């Protein structure tokens, strides 16, 4: 079931959640099989920032009941190195034919996810992503719970709208706004993103969460970053409610995610109005989960 999303034709509706699949590392681990049978119909990069970031100190992971908390802290090599080194390495990915009805190996467009700590930073990121052919769309991460952005656009719809409006003019490429789930009225943020000129919205990002170190001794947070974000099946029912509410509110396409493990879970998100479904945590357990789910949707 090939699908059209913001002018992109995709082999199937299943993509990866940003930061949950490193195609370059995976290619090193699994060889060319990965590139020739890529599990997703589009590849979303980990969040890229203007400057390189080392990320949070370990431990960065905590397993929870039917889920996990991460406090990765957006490690990335920075915009320049991403464009110079990673982008070329991402060329030539082909979607696993198992996921596409016609069984052909469609090319896999790259969606670059970016985060900035000011409108000005975001502007530079968006402009830089506007040039390269190899970038098919841009996703704005305004919702990472593990990083203090100077910007509070994850918390104020009006501010989000003006920031998006300020970026809209700087690229003709599809602009996807990734919303925070840690809000009382998520559809209001989706509306603001749409009013600002976004071509699509994606949700949900992880839920703010915490764990204490096990064992005796004084209580201390387990995660090096203090708090983190909850993902996986545990959050799926909350994700479905937020995606349904957002899809009911806005006209632009919605990328729904949160705890998807099976085609049935993906179907639920599509049924409540999502155009695409993203898989994150489940790929850790099953690197081919995206293709398995896409195949199950046919």
């Amino acid at each position, binding site marked *: 079931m090939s699908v059209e999303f913001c002018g992109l034709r995709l082999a199937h509706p299943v993509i990866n959640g940003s930061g949950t699949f*490193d195609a370059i*590392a995976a290619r090193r681990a699994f060889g060319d099989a*990965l590139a020739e049978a890529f599990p997703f119909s589009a590849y979303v990069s980990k969040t890229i920032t203007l400057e390189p970031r080392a*990320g949070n100190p*370990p*431990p960065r*992971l905590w397993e929870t009941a039917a889920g996990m908390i991460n406090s*990765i802290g957006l490690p990335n090599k920075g915009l320049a190195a991403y464009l110079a080194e990673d982008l070329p390495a991402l060329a030539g990915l082909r979607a696993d034919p198992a996921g596409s009805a016609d069984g052909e190996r469609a090319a896999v467009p790259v969606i670059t996810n970016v985060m900035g700590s000011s409108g000005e930073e975001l502007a530079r990121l968006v402009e830089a992503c506007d040039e390269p052919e190899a970038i098919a769309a841009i996703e704005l991460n305004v919702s990472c719970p593990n990083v203090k952005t100077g910007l509070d656009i994850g918390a104020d719809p009006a501010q989000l709208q003006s920031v998006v409006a300020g970026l809209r003019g700087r690229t003709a490429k599809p602009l996807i706004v990734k919303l925070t789930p840690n809000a009382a009225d998520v559809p209001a943020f989706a509306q603001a993103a749409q009013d600002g000129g976004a071509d699509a919205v994606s949700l949900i990002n992880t839920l703010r969460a915490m764990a204490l170190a096990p064992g005796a001794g004084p209580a201390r947070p387990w995660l090096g970053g203090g708090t983190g974000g909850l993902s996986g099946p545990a959050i799926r029912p909350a994700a479905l409610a937020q995606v349904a509410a957002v899809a009911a509110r806005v006209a632009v396409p919605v990328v729904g995610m949160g705890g998807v493990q099976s085609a049935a879970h993906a179907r639920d998100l599509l049924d409540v109005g999502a155009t695409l479904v993203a898989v994150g945590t489940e790929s850790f357990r099953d690197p*081919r989960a995206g293709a398995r789910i896409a195949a199950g949707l046919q």
Partner: protein
Amino acid sequence: MSGPTDGAPFGRRLARVAANERLGAYNVLRVADPAMTGVLPGQFAMLAAAERWGGGEDERPFLARAFSVARQSGEESSYVLEDVGPGTRRLCELRAGDEVWVLGPLGRPFAAPEPDAAGMRRAILVGGGVGIAPLAILQDSLGADATTVLLGFRDRERVPGAELLRGAELATDDGSAGHRGLVTELLERELVADAHAAVYSCGPAGMLEGVRAICERAGVPAQLALEAGMACGFGACFGCVVPRRGGGYLRVCVDGPVIDAAELEHVEAHAGAPE
């Protein structure tokens, strides 16, 4: 045995348990898994029971768990398990015929010893507790005569683990076998006797830090097989990092698990590896 492999099969696969036998405090899990043939010493796999992976302590496990391949005989892989929580407990329960999800072989293996001006350095394998696992397959490839093996165990129940290697000299915390004390004390003695050696080590972070410091002082190259809490095992989650000397982090699953001691300032204990 030089550098990473050309790649594991893409995707996890179902494999059948051939046997799961007690070895003192450990379990030796044998899995019929042709796809693992060609695994290199130091590489690991992500394992999960096909049935009922979950519903244990705190409703866990959920994610797959990382285990060093301890031996590969033909199409059968062996793993050494220590029950430290819900994931290892579930795997220790498995019976012959049960199925496990396997992803791998993964990660950077031990690098082959290379001769220097003074000729070939002798290989000293230093293992602690369940950290003996990758040293067993390493000894298989280097040959028993070419290796000096020093193993440390906490107590009598764990000593049987030494049977996985040949000619091991032992140290135990409780003195129940071999030297009463730390295996690192045996290593120091060895290096005083003859420092023209290369050390290959795996074990708890505290022991690895001792090995690292001793080898640094003695100017002996050391390769350390690290552990870290992992979600994916193939570089996707950026969760398994350890600090790299000179700043930044290494992903244990793809930059390791075998890391040259020179790349580390210290080996720190906090990333979810059982001590």
